[in-house]
Protein backbone atom coordinates (compact mmCIF):
# COMPACT_ATOMS: atom_id res chain seq x y z
CA UNK A 1 0.00 0.00 0.00
CA UNK A 2 1.16 3.49 -0.75
CA UNK A 3 2.51 5.68 2.00
CA UNK A 4 1.02 8.93 3.17
CA UNK A 5 2.82 11.16 0.66
CA UNK A 6 3.46 11.14 -3.07
CA UNK A 7 7.03 12.32 -3.23
CA UNK A 8 8.68 10.20 -5.87
CA UNK A 9 7.87 7.62 -8.51
CA UNK A 10 10.99 5.85 -7.25
CA UNK A 11 9.01 4.95 -4.10
CA UNK A 12 6.03 3.42 -5.93
CA UNK A 13 5.71 -0.10 -7.24
CA UNK A 14 3.93 -1.40 -10.30
CA UNK A 15 0.68 -2.06 -8.46
CA UNK A 16 0.63 1.49 -7.10
CA UNK A 17 1.12 2.96 -10.57
CA UNK A 18 -1.61 0.79 -12.07
CA UNK A 19 -3.97 1.78 -9.32
CA UNK A 20 -3.39 5.48 -9.98
CA UNK A 21 -3.86 5.00 -13.73
CA UNK A 22 -7.12 3.11 -13.29
CA UNK A 23 -8.40 5.77 -10.94
CA UNK A 24 -7.40 8.44 -13.44
CA UNK A 25 -9.47 6.72 -16.07
CA UNK A 26 -12.53 7.02 -13.84
CA UNK A 27 -11.76 10.67 -13.21
CA UNK A 28 -11.49 11.28 -16.92
CA UNK A 29 -15.13 10.27 -17.27
CA UNK A 30 -16.05 12.89 -14.66
CA UNK A 31 -14.31 15.43 -16.87
CA UNK A 32 -16.62 14.52 -19.74
CA UNK A 33 -19.80 15.20 -17.82
CA UNK A 34 -21.70 18.47 -17.97
CA UNK A 35 -21.34 18.93 -14.24
CA UNK A 36 -17.63 18.28 -13.85
CA UNK A 37 -17.78 18.17 -10.09
CA UNK A 38 -18.14 15.47 -7.47
CA UNK A 39 -18.48 16.09 -3.73
CA UNK A 40 -15.69 13.74 -2.68
CA UNK A 41 -13.40 16.32 -1.06
CA UNK A 42 -16.11 18.76 -0.06
CA UNK A 43 -15.06 20.82 2.95
CA UNK A 44 -11.47 19.68 2.62
CA UNK A 45 -8.58 22.06 2.17
CA UNK A 46 -5.89 21.67 -0.41
CA UNK A 47 -2.90 23.98 -0.20
CA UNK A 48 -0.74 24.67 -3.24
CA UNK A 49 2.65 25.65 -1.88
CA UNK A 50 4.61 26.74 -4.93
CA UNK A 51 8.03 28.15 -4.10
CA UNK A 52 8.82 27.98 -7.80
CA UNK A 53 6.37 29.68 -10.10
CA UNK A 54 4.36 27.51 -12.44
CA UNK A 55 1.02 28.52 -13.84
CA UNK A 56 0.36 25.26 -15.67
CA UNK A 57 0.94 22.77 -12.92
CA UNK A 58 -0.63 24.91 -10.27
CA UNK A 59 -3.71 25.57 -12.35
CA UNK A 60 -3.99 21.88 -13.14
CA UNK A 61 -3.95 21.00 -9.44
CA UNK A 62 -6.38 23.78 -8.71
CA UNK A 63 -8.89 22.55 -11.27
CA UNK A 64 -8.43 18.99 -10.05
CA UNK A 65 -9.07 20.01 -6.46
CA UNK A 66 -12.11 22.09 -7.36
CA UNK A 67 -13.61 19.29 -9.41
CA UNK A 68 -13.45 17.22 -6.27
CA UNK A 69 -15.16 20.11 -4.40
CA UNK A 70 -12.13 20.89 -2.27
CA UNK A 71 -11.27 24.39 -1.10
CA UNK A 72 -8.02 25.29 -2.81
CA UNK A 73 -5.62 27.82 -1.33
CA UNK A 74 -2.58 29.07 -3.24
CA UNK A 75 0.51 30.00 -1.26
CA UNK A 76 3.41 31.52 -3.13
CA UNK A 77 6.10 32.25 -0.54
CA UNK A 78 7.99 35.40 -1.39
CA UNK A 79 11.10 34.68 -3.33
CA UNK A 80 12.92 37.97 -2.98
CA UNK A 81 16.48 37.72 -4.15
CA UNK A 82 17.69 38.86 -0.74
CA UNK A 83 16.09 36.02 1.14
CA UNK A 84 17.97 33.02 -0.16
CA UNK A 85 16.67 30.29 2.02
CA UNK A 86 13.28 29.54 3.50
CA UNK A 87 13.18 27.90 6.89
CA UNK A 88 11.44 24.67 6.09
CA UNK A 89 10.33 24.04 9.61
CA UNK A 90 8.74 27.49 9.87
CA UNK A 91 6.84 26.99 6.65
CA UNK A 92 5.64 23.54 7.66
CA UNK A 93 4.45 24.66 11.07
CA UNK A 94 2.51 27.56 9.60
CA UNK A 95 0.75 25.16 7.27
CA UNK A 96 0.05 22.57 9.92
CA UNK A 97 -1.81 25.20 11.87
CA UNK A 98 -4.35 25.31 9.03
CA UNK A 99 -4.90 21.54 9.18
CA UNK A 100 -4.83 21.01 5.43
CA UNK A 101 -5.91 17.71 3.90
CA UNK A 102 -3.16 17.82 1.34
CA UNK A 103 -0.24 20.09 0.54
CA UNK A 104 1.11 20.25 -2.99
CA UNK A 105 4.69 21.48 -3.02
CA UNK A 106 6.91 22.69 -5.82
CA UNK A 107 10.43 23.97 -5.17
CA UNK A 108 13.49 24.73 -7.24
CA UNK A 109 15.66 22.56 -5.00
CA UNK A 110 15.47 18.78 -4.68
CA UNK A 111 14.43 17.37 -1.34
CA UNK A 112 12.25 20.19 -0.02
CA UNK A 113 8.91 18.32 -0.37
CA UNK A 114 10.41 15.43 1.56
CA UNK A 115 11.61 17.70 4.34
CA UNK A 116 8.19 19.33 4.53
CA UNK A 117 6.52 15.92 4.58
CA UNK A 118 8.74 14.89 7.50
CA UNK A 119 7.53 17.90 9.47
CA UNK A 120 3.83 17.82 8.54
CA UNK A 121 0.89 15.64 9.51
CA UNK A 122 -0.88 16.26 6.23
CA UNK A 123 -0.13 14.30 3.05
CA UNK A 124 2.38 16.02 0.78
CA UNK A 125 2.31 15.76 -2.99
CA UNK A 126 5.48 16.66 -4.86
CA UNK A 127 4.73 18.94 -7.81
CA UNK A 128 8.37 19.09 -8.82
CA UNK A 129 11.51 19.47 -6.75
CA UNK A 130 14.65 20.66 -8.48
CA UNK A 131 16.03 18.00 -10.78
CA UNK A 132 14.74 15.19 -8.58
CA UNK A 133 11.17 14.16 -9.46
CA UNK A 134 7.84 15.38 -10.84
CA UNK A 135 5.59 12.41 -10.10
CA UNK A 136 2.28 13.73 -11.44
CA UNK A 137 3.90 14.66 -14.76
CA UNK A 138 5.16 11.12 -15.18
CA UNK A 139 1.75 9.78 -14.20
CA UNK A 140 -0.02 11.86 -16.79
CA UNK A 141 2.59 10.86 -19.36
CA UNK A 142 1.98 7.20 -18.51
CA UNK A 143 -1.75 7.74 -18.76
CA UNK A 144 -1.45 9.45 -22.13
CA UNK A 145 0.64 6.64 -23.58
CA UNK A 146 -1.68 4.02 -22.10
CA UNK A 147 -4.70 5.69 -23.65
CA UNK A 148 -2.95 5.95 -27.01
CA UNK A 149 -1.33 2.53 -27.18
CA UNK A 150 -3.57 0.45 -24.92
CA UNK A 151 -0.56 -0.95 -23.07
CA UNK A 152 2.80 -0.02 -21.59
CA UNK A 153 4.64 -3.34 -21.43
CA UNK A 154 7.17 -3.80 -24.17
CA UNK A 155 6.97 -0.28 -25.55
CA UNK A 156 10.15 1.62 -26.38
CA UNK A 157 10.18 5.11 -24.92
CA UNK A 158 12.92 7.55 -25.92
CA UNK A 159 13.45 10.65 -23.79
CA UNK A 160 15.46 13.40 -25.46
CA UNK A 161 17.05 16.50 -24.03
CA UNK A 162 18.62 17.99 -20.94
CA UNK A 163 18.27 14.84 -18.90
CA UNK A 164 20.70 15.76 -16.14
CA UNK A 165 18.66 18.80 -15.11
CA UNK A 166 15.27 17.21 -15.69
CA UNK A 167 12.92 15.96 -13.01
CA UNK A 168 10.47 14.98 -15.73
CA UNK A 169 13.08 12.67 -17.23
CA UNK A 170 13.84 11.04 -13.92
CA UNK A 171 10.24 10.44 -12.92
CA UNK A 172 9.42 9.13 -16.37
CA UNK A 173 12.33 6.76 -16.53
CA UNK A 174 11.26 5.18 -13.25
CA UNK A 175 7.58 5.13 -14.23
CA UNK A 176 7.92 3.57 -17.66
CA UNK A 177 10.55 1.08 -16.52
CA UNK A 178 8.40 -0.13 -13.67
CA UNK A 179 5.56 -0.82 -16.09
CA UNK A 180 7.70 -2.87 -18.43
CA UNK A 181 8.71 -0.37 -21.09
CA UNK A 182 12.24 -0.05 -22.42
CA UNK A 183 13.49 3.45 -21.68
CA UNK A 184 16.20 5.17 -23.69
CA UNK A 185 17.79 8.52 -22.95
CA UNK A 186 19.29 10.65 -25.70
CA UNK A 187 21.37 13.74 -24.99
CA UNK A 188 24.74 15.32 -25.56
CA UNK A 189 27.28 13.75 -23.17
CA UNK A 190 27.27 16.84 -20.97
CA UNK A 191 23.57 16.35 -20.31
CA UNK A 192 23.52 12.68 -19.35
CA UNK A 193 23.49 12.15 -15.57
CA UNK A 194 26.47 10.31 -14.08
CA UNK A 195 26.00 6.53 -13.80
CA UNK A 196 22.46 6.78 -15.18
CA UNK A 197 22.52 3.32 -16.73
CA UNK A 198 22.58 1.94 -13.20
CA UNK A 199 18.91 2.92 -13.14
CA UNK A 200 18.09 0.35 -15.80
CA UNK A 201 18.00 2.56 -18.89
CA UNK A 202 20.20 2.92 -21.95
CA UNK A 203 21.95 6.19 -22.63
CA UNK A 204 22.64 7.39 -26.18
CA UNK A 205 24.50 10.34 -27.61
CA UNK A 206 23.14 9.60 -31.06
CA UNK A 207 19.54 10.66 -31.51
CA UNK A 208 19.17 8.44 -34.54
CA UNK A 209 20.10 5.29 -32.66
CA UNK A 210 17.90 6.23 -29.76
CA UNK A 211 14.92 6.72 -32.04
CA UNK A 212 15.21 3.40 -33.92
CA UNK A 213 11.91 1.64 -33.45
CA UNK A 214 10.68 3.92 -30.69
CA UNK A 215 6.96 3.94 -29.90
CA UNK A 216 7.09 7.12 -27.87
CA UNK A 217 9.38 10.11 -28.27
CA UNK A 218 9.41 12.42 -25.29
CA UNK A 219 11.12 15.78 -25.72
CA UNK A 220 12.41 17.97 -22.94
CA UNK A 221 12.78 21.70 -22.93
CA UNK A 222 16.21 23.21 -23.44
CA UNK A 223 16.96 26.18 -21.23
CA UNK A 224 19.11 29.17 -22.07
CA UNK A 225 20.88 28.99 -18.70
CA UNK A 226 22.50 25.75 -19.75
CA UNK A 227 24.36 27.64 -22.47
CA UNK A 228 25.93 29.79 -19.81
CA UNK A 229 26.84 26.75 -17.77
CA UNK A 230 28.79 25.39 -20.69
CA UNK A 231 26.55 22.38 -21.28
CA UNK A 232 26.20 22.89 -25.00
CA UNK A 233 27.69 25.43 -27.41
CA UNK A 234 24.63 26.94 -29.10
CA UNK A 235 20.91 26.56 -29.64
CA UNK A 236 21.62 26.08 -33.32
CA UNK A 237 23.85 23.09 -32.71
CA UNK A 238 21.41 21.60 -30.23
CA UNK A 239 18.51 21.89 -32.64
CA UNK A 240 20.58 20.34 -35.42
CA UNK A 241 21.74 17.34 -33.38
CA UNK A 242 18.89 16.71 -30.96
CA UNK A 243 15.94 18.69 -32.21
CA UNK A 244 13.14 16.51 -33.55
CA UNK A 245 11.81 17.06 -37.06
CA UNK A 246 9.92 14.86 -39.50
CA UNK A 247 13.08 13.51 -41.04
CA UNK A 248 14.48 12.27 -37.76
CA UNK A 249 11.09 11.03 -36.64
CA UNK A 250 11.15 8.51 -39.47
CA UNK A 251 13.62 6.41 -37.51
CA UNK A 252 10.91 5.80 -34.96
CA UNK A 253 7.96 3.53 -35.62
CA UNK A 254 5.35 4.74 -38.08
CA UNK A 255 2.77 5.11 -35.36
CA UNK A 256 5.12 6.71 -32.84
CA UNK A 257 3.72 9.53 -30.75
CA UNK A 258 5.54 12.69 -29.74
CA UNK A 259 5.26 14.16 -26.25
CA UNK A 260 6.53 17.20 -24.38
CA UNK A 261 5.83 18.38 -20.83
CA UNK A 262 5.68 21.99 -22.03
CA UNK A 263 6.23 24.79 -22.51
CA UNK A 264 7.74 24.01 -25.88
CA UNK A 265 10.53 25.85 -27.66
CA UNK A 266 9.38 25.71 -31.25
CA UNK A 267 12.20 25.19 -33.67
CA UNK A 268 14.56 24.03 -30.95
CA UNK A 269 13.60 20.72 -29.43
CA UNK A 270 10.64 20.27 -31.76
CA UNK A 271 10.11 21.48 -35.33
CA UNK A 272 7.23 23.89 -35.97
CA UNK A 273 5.25 21.48 -38.07
CA UNK A 274 5.39 18.69 -35.53
CA UNK A 275 4.16 20.56 -32.50
CA UNK A 276 0.50 21.12 -33.26
CA UNK A 277 -1.03 17.95 -34.58
CA UNK A 278 -0.56 14.21 -34.79
CA UNK A 279 1.77 12.56 -33.99
CA UNK A 280 2.09 15.14 -31.20
CA UNK A 281 -0.17 14.43 -28.25
CA UNK A 282 0.96 17.43 -26.24
CA UNK A 283 -2.54 18.81 -25.71
CA UNK A 284 -3.78 15.40 -24.59
CA UNK A 285 -1.07 15.46 -21.97
CA UNK A 286 -2.39 18.72 -20.58
CA UNK A 287 -5.97 17.46 -20.56
CA UNK A 288 -4.95 14.23 -18.91
CA UNK A 289 -3.12 16.21 -16.27
CA UNK A 290 -6.37 17.17 -14.58
CA UNK A 291 -7.73 13.61 -14.50
CA UNK A 292 -4.45 12.27 -13.16
CA UNK A 293 -4.24 14.92 -10.48
CA UNK A 294 -7.82 14.26 -9.48
CA UNK A 295 -6.86 10.61 -9.09
CA UNK A 296 -3.85 11.52 -6.97
CA UNK A 297 -5.92 13.79 -4.75
CA UNK A 298 -8.60 11.11 -4.39
CA UNK A 299 -6.01 8.54 -3.32
CA UNK A 300 -3.89 10.74 -1.05
CA UNK A 301 -5.82 13.71 0.34
CA UNK A 302 -7.10 13.48 3.87
CA UNK A 303 -5.29 10.22 4.59
CA UNK A 304 -3.03 9.68 7.51
CA UNK A 305 -1.94 6.04 7.57
CA UNK A 306 -0.44 6.55 10.99
CA UNK A 307 -3.87 7.22 12.41
CA UNK A 308 -5.58 4.48 10.49
CA UNK A 309 -6.10 1.02 11.85
Amino acid at each position, binding site marked *: *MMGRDLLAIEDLDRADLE*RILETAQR*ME*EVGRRDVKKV*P*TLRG*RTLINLFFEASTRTRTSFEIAGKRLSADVVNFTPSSSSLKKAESILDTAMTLDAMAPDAVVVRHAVAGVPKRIADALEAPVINAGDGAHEHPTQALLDLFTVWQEKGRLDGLTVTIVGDIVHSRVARSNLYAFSKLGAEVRLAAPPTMLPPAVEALGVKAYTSLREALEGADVVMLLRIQQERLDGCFFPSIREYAATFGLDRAKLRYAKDDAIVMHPGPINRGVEIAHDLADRRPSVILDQVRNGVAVRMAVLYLFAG*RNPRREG
Partner: protein
Amino acid sequence: MTPSLDARVVLDDTAIRRALVRIAHELVEHNERLDELYLVAIPNGGVPLARSIAANLHQIADLEVPVGILDTTLYRDDLLSRGDRPPLRRTEMPSAVDGRVVVLVDDVVSTGRTIRAAMDALMDFGRPQAVQVVGLVDRGHRELPIKIDYVGKNLPTRRGERVELRGLAGGLEGPLEVVVRGDGEAGQPEGVTA
Protein backbone atom coordinates in the same frame (compact mmCIF):
# COMPACT_ATOMS: atom_id res chain seq x y z
CA MET B 1 -14.58 -17.62 -3.57
CA THR B 2 -14.36 -20.86 -1.64
CA PRO B 3 -17.68 -22.05 -0.37
CA SER B 4 -17.85 -21.37 3.32
CA LEU B 5 -19.60 -23.64 5.73
CA ASP B 6 -21.05 -20.61 7.40
CA ALA B 7 -22.48 -19.02 4.25
CA ARG B 8 -26.05 -19.91 3.51
CA VAL B 9 -27.75 -19.35 0.19
CA VAL B 10 -30.90 -17.33 0.63
CA LEU B 11 -31.70 -16.84 -3.04
CA ASP B 12 -30.57 -19.25 -5.74
CA ASP B 13 -30.34 -18.40 -9.41
CA THR B 14 -33.89 -19.52 -10.16
CA ALA B 15 -35.34 -17.45 -7.33
CA ILE B 16 -33.40 -14.42 -8.52
CA ARG B 17 -34.66 -14.79 -12.08
CA ARG B 18 -38.25 -15.14 -10.90
CA ALA B 19 -37.92 -12.06 -8.75
CA LEU B 20 -36.52 -10.04 -11.65
CA VAL B 21 -39.41 -11.10 -13.86
CA ARG B 22 -41.89 -10.09 -11.18
CA ILE B 23 -40.12 -6.75 -10.72
CA ALA B 24 -40.27 -6.09 -14.46
CA HIS B 25 -44.02 -6.70 -14.37
CA GLU B 26 -44.37 -4.38 -11.39
CA LEU B 27 -42.45 -1.67 -13.22
CA VAL B 28 -44.83 -1.92 -16.14
CA GLU B 29 -47.79 -1.94 -13.80
CA HIS B 30 -46.77 1.14 -11.81
CA ASN B 31 -45.47 3.41 -14.55
CA GLU B 32 -47.52 5.28 -17.12
CA ARG B 33 -44.80 6.63 -19.39
CA LEU B 34 -42.82 3.48 -20.05
CA ASP B 35 -40.83 5.12 -22.82
CA GLU B 36 -39.27 7.40 -20.23
CA LEU B 37 -37.84 4.64 -18.11
CA TYR B 38 -34.08 4.59 -17.59
CA LEU B 39 -32.51 1.75 -15.61
CA VAL B 40 -29.41 2.91 -13.75
CA ALA B 41 -27.38 0.18 -12.11
CA ILE B 42 -25.20 0.67 -9.07
CA PRO B 43 -22.06 -1.37 -9.65
CA ASN B 44 -21.09 -4.07 -9.26
CA GLY B 45 -24.11 -6.13 -8.26
CA GLY B 46 -26.72 -3.88 -9.79
CA VAL B 47 -25.32 -4.33 -13.28
CA PRO B 48 -26.37 -7.89 -14.16
CA LEU B 49 -29.68 -7.27 -12.40
CA ALA B 50 -30.44 -4.14 -14.40
CA ARG B 51 -29.52 -5.86 -17.64
CA SER B 52 -31.79 -8.74 -16.74
CA ILE B 53 -34.67 -6.39 -15.98
CA ALA B 54 -34.11 -4.58 -19.28
CA ALA B 55 -34.26 -7.90 -21.11
CA ASN B 56 -37.45 -8.77 -19.26
CA LEU B 57 -39.04 -5.42 -20.12
CA HIS B 58 -38.20 -6.01 -23.74
CA GLN B 59 -39.89 -9.39 -23.59
CA ILE B 60 -42.95 -8.36 -21.63
CA ALA B 61 -43.70 -4.99 -23.17
CA ASP B 62 -41.45 -4.72 -26.20
CA LEU B 63 -39.51 -1.88 -24.56
CA GLU B 64 -35.92 -0.73 -25.28
CA VAL B 65 -35.01 0.67 -21.90
CA PRO B 66 -31.50 2.13 -21.72
CA VAL B 67 -29.21 0.76 -19.01
CA GLY B 68 -26.69 3.06 -17.38
CA ILE B 69 -24.02 2.31 -14.79
CA LEU B 70 -23.47 4.88 -12.04
CA ASP B 71 -20.62 4.41 -9.60
CA THR B 72 -21.41 6.09 -6.27
CA THR B 73 -17.97 5.84 -4.68
CA LEU B 74 -17.14 9.50 -5.20
CA TYR B 75 -20.38 10.47 -3.47
CA ARG B 76 -19.98 8.32 -0.38
CA ASP B 77 -20.30 10.04 2.97
CA ASP B 78 -17.78 7.79 4.68
CA LEU B 79 -14.81 8.00 2.30
CA LEU B 80 -12.50 10.21 4.26
CA SER B 81 -12.99 8.50 7.58
CA ARG B 82 -11.93 5.18 6.13
CA GLY B 83 -8.33 4.17 5.80
CA ASP B 84 -7.87 2.94 2.31
CA ARG B 85 -9.60 4.61 -0.62
CA PRO B 86 -11.96 2.15 -2.30
CA PRO B 87 -11.36 1.52 -5.99
CA LEU B 88 -13.52 3.50 -8.37
CA ARG B 89 -15.84 1.66 -10.71
CA ARG B 90 -16.90 2.45 -14.23
CA THR B 91 -19.64 4.99 -14.86
CA GLU B 92 -21.39 4.88 -18.22
CA MET B 93 -24.50 6.92 -18.76
CA PRO B 94 -25.53 6.35 -22.38
CA SER B 95 -28.67 8.40 -22.05
CA ALA B 96 -29.38 11.87 -20.65
CA VAL B 97 -31.13 11.95 -17.31
CA ASP B 98 -33.36 15.02 -17.82
CA GLY B 99 -37.04 14.18 -17.74
CA ARG B 100 -36.50 10.47 -17.31
CA VAL B 101 -38.01 8.12 -14.79
CA VAL B 102 -34.78 6.78 -13.38
CA VAL B 103 -34.95 3.36 -11.79
CA LEU B 104 -31.91 2.76 -9.59
CA VAL B 105 -31.01 -0.89 -9.33
CA ASP B 106 -28.95 -2.25 -6.47
CA ASP B 107 -28.39 -5.78 -5.24
CA VAL B 108 -28.49 -5.37 -1.44
CA VAL B 109 -30.01 -2.35 0.31
CA SER B 110 -29.30 -1.84 3.98
CA THR B 111 -28.62 1.56 5.54
CA GLY B 112 -29.84 3.42 2.49
CA ARG B 113 -26.63 5.47 2.18
CA THR B 114 -25.68 4.05 -1.18
CA ILE B 115 -29.08 4.89 -2.63
CA ARG B 116 -28.79 8.37 -1.21
CA ALA B 117 -25.30 8.74 -2.75
CA ALA B 118 -26.68 7.48 -6.06
CA MET B 119 -29.38 10.14 -5.99
CA ASP B 120 -26.78 12.84 -5.31
CA ALA B 121 -24.77 11.57 -8.26
CA LEU B 122 -27.83 11.40 -10.43
CA MET B 123 -28.71 15.03 -9.74
CA ASP B 124 -25.30 16.05 -11.11
CA PHE B 125 -26.22 14.36 -14.38
CA GLY B 126 -29.50 16.15 -14.80
CA ARG B 127 -33.03 16.48 -13.48
CA PRO B 128 -34.98 13.24 -13.56
CA GLN B 129 -38.72 13.38 -13.61
CA ALA B 130 -38.83 10.75 -10.89
CA VAL B 131 -36.55 8.28 -9.14
CA GLN B 132 -37.58 4.79 -8.17
CA VAL B 133 -35.54 2.11 -6.47
CA VAL B 134 -35.18 -1.59 -7.18
CA GLY B 135 -33.44 -3.64 -4.50
CA LEU B 136 -33.01 -7.36 -4.97
CA VAL B 137 -32.58 -7.83 -1.23
CA ASP B 138 -33.76 -5.50 1.53
CA ARG B 139 -31.92 -6.53 4.69
CA GLY B 140 -33.19 -3.67 6.85
CA HIS B 141 -31.11 -1.54 9.26
CA ARG B 142 -32.05 1.74 7.56
CA GLU B 143 -30.18 4.80 8.74
CA LEU B 144 -31.79 7.17 6.26
CA PRO B 145 -35.42 7.54 5.17
CA ILE B 146 -34.96 5.61 1.93
CA LYS B 147 -37.63 3.26 0.68
CA ILE B 148 -37.34 0.56 -1.92
CA ASP B 149 -40.13 0.60 -4.47
CA TYR B 150 -39.53 -2.86 -5.85
CA VAL B 151 -38.10 -5.55 -3.57
CA GLY B 152 -36.94 -8.99 -4.59
CA LYS B 153 -36.84 -10.38 -1.07
CA ASN B 154 -37.10 -8.97 2.43
CA LEU B 155 -34.37 -10.55 4.52
CA PRO B 156 -34.07 -9.82 8.23
CA THR B 157 -30.38 -10.03 9.24
CA ARG B 158 -28.13 -9.27 12.16
CA ARG B 159 -25.99 -6.18 11.72
CA GLY B 160 -22.73 -8.14 11.77
CA GLU B 161 -23.80 -10.52 9.01
CA ARG B 162 -22.72 -9.90 5.42
CA VAL B 163 -25.13 -10.32 2.53
CA GLU B 164 -23.76 -10.51 -0.97
CA LEU B 165 -24.67 -11.27 -4.52
CA ARG B 166 -22.15 -13.44 -6.28
CA GLY B 167 -21.72 -15.47 -9.41
CA LEU B 168 -21.39 -19.22 -9.09
CA ALA B 169 -18.58 -19.27 -11.58
CA GLY B 170 -16.80 -16.24 -10.22
CA GLY B 171 -17.44 -12.68 -11.40
CA LEU B 172 -21.02 -11.71 -12.03
CA GLU B 173 -21.55 -13.45 -15.35
CA GLY B 174 -23.71 -16.53 -15.49
CA PRO B 175 -25.81 -17.94 -12.66
CA LEU B 176 -26.05 -15.85 -9.51
CA GLU B 177 -26.91 -16.45 -5.89
CA VAL B 178 -27.34 -14.37 -2.75
CA VAL B 179 -25.55 -15.62 0.34
CA VAL B 180 -25.47 -14.59 3.96
CA ARG B 181 -22.25 -14.98 5.94
CA GLY B 182 -21.98 -15.08 9.70
CA ASP B 183 -20.40 -12.29 11.79
CA GLY B 184 -16.70 -11.84 11.34
CA GLU B 185 -16.54 -13.92 8.18
CA ALA B 186 -13.82 -12.84 5.80
CA GLY B 187 -14.86 -12.72 2.17
CA GLN B 188 -14.40 -10.73 -1.00
CA PRO B 189 -17.67 -8.86 -1.51
CA GLU B 190 -18.63 -8.42 -5.11
CA GLY B 191 -21.98 -6.88 -4.73
CA VAL B 192 -22.15 -5.90 -1.12
CA THR B 193 -23.40 -2.41 -0.51
CA ALA B 194 -24.39 -0.60 2.63
